[in-house]
């Protein structure tokens, strides 16, 4: 385990999370550095989502320490963590959109909630909401409520809400889960676009090896507005680190090439081969 550095964004030190008598995470240690893309693979109930929630302080570890932007959040109160969480955007597996609010109010929520000055509350909010929704190509849904949108559209609104404050770290919890392949690829393309246009640090939890493939092997071309294969020299593959969880234990951590060389049957399920 390397020493924590200034560019450390998330750092787990021997973290164990227990629910009742079940270990959801068992002695996990890793570090996500600024600019990295971290793909966290694992089967259902392997502890992937718990790991993201622990990184955000939504779940407290039974032992070990968690650092977010270099600050130890293990013993922090909920109020203390609100400021730090303001620097993180999250897309929840279930979307987490407030079903009593319109799409506009949902996307505006993080901006309005964190704004203290009245002019910041009123003036800039609408523009930022429209810009975020334009990014996910859903500007026309401002007045709708989440129940009027499809699963894929709700996920895209979730991405818009997560990135509206332009956070330094984006956490995606199973962004493509439960979607058809075309919609899943659209969502992943948006995540690549957000990564390449905003240079955010990213952690993605997923059980689809295709998601890792898209993140490691593609980049966003701003001129064509499409994804294109990323050449080796782009550095994307070096900045994309893979982890595999099994039953709450970290069983693999390494680059795309290292993952492709794995022969363990469980880890090999997530191998990525260039297509």
């Amino acid at each position, binding site marked *: 385990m390397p020493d924590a550095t200034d560019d450390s964004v998330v750092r787990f030190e021997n973290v164990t999370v227990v629910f009742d008598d079940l270990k959801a995470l068992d002695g996990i240690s890793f570090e996500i550095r600024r600019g990295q893309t971290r793909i966290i693979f694992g089967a259902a109930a392997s502890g992937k989502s718990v790991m993201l929630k622990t990184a955000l302080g939504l779940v407290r570890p039974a032992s070990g320490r968690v650092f977010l932007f270099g600050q130890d959040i293990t013993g922090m109160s909920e109020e203390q963590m609100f400021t730090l969480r*303001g620097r993180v955007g999250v897309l929840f597996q279930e979307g*987490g*959109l407030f079903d009593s609010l319109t799409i506009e109010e949902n996307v505006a929520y993080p901006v309005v909630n964190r704004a203290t000055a009245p002019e910041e509350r009123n003036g800039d909010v609408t523009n930022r909401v429209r810009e975020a929704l334009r990014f996910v190509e859903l500007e026309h849904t401002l007045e709708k409520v989440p129940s009027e949108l499809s699963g894929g559209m709700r996920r895209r609104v979730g991405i818009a809400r997560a990135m509206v404050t332009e956070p330094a770290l984006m956490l995606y919890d199973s962004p493509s889960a439960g979607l058809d392949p075309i919609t899943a690829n659209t969502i992943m393309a948006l995540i690549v676009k957000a990564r390449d246009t905003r240079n955010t640090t990213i952690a993605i939890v997923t059980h689809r090896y295709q998601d890792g493939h898209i993140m490691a092997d593609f980049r966003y071309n701003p001129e064509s507005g499409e994804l294109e294969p990323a050449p080796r020299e782009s550095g994307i593959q070096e900045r994309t680190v893979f982890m595999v969880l099994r039953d709450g234990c970290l069983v693999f951590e390494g680059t795309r090439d290292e993952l492709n060389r794995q022969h363990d049957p469980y880890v090999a399920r997530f191998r990525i081969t260039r297509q």
Partner: protein
Amino acid sequence: MLRVSGIETRPYASIVTEAGARLFDLLKPPVLATQDYFTLTGRAVQNVVRRPFYADDLFLQMDIIGVGSLPIVILIGLFTGAVMSLQMARALETYGATGQVGQIVSITLVRELGPVLTSILVAGRNASGIASELGSMKVTEQIDAMRALGTDPVKKLVTPRIAATALMLPVLTVIADFVGLVGGYIVASLLLNLTASQFWTSAWRILEWNDLTQGLLKPFIFALVVSSVGCFYGLRTTGGTQGVGRSTTQAVVAASVWIFICDLFLTRIFVSLARMS
């Protein structure tokens, strides 16, 4: 292991230790739940005086709980008063004292039936509503999203619901008491041939400060119980939509039971106070 007449027996200390461990395992969940309940309620009550204040949410909940419950409270109050009047008239007829129907209906409604029935109705209508709403938010990760976006769910969701119920339930109880008396008067007037003056004068004069105090304090306490129990079960929902249904049922049952338990203790206190004065 000890061996007595071919039967293996364990040392007494081992049996006691095992029984103690099992008892501990048995008691741990309810003790933890009780601790969580009081922690949640304590935080929610503290938030009443802490910024930010979610006034919009408070007024919305006052509308849902107060105005929304009004029709059913009026309906139940009216018929309860009418039935009380009928039943009491039958009993008082034996002593030739049907003229005192107003007194008995008044005391019964203000001291007991008004607060308890209204609270039970609100528990059935709103504790379930609160539990299912918060439970749905919990299982769809809206509560986590709220925390991730820098909002304290206790402050935003629990405090307005508790405050709104605490403000509206005493008001609803006063309305139920009055409508109940109207129901009692209608029966007394039509079937017992009592005059308005006879009924209302006796109904009003019998009431003491002790009655009015307990008639208002009880619904306030019951409101805290109903809303906090609804929020508690809602926020600890797990297991998807099935879990939401389970939380809703648990909230209504627990709130109703606790209303009666609290009523017993509050009545005991007010009876003692009445005797002292």
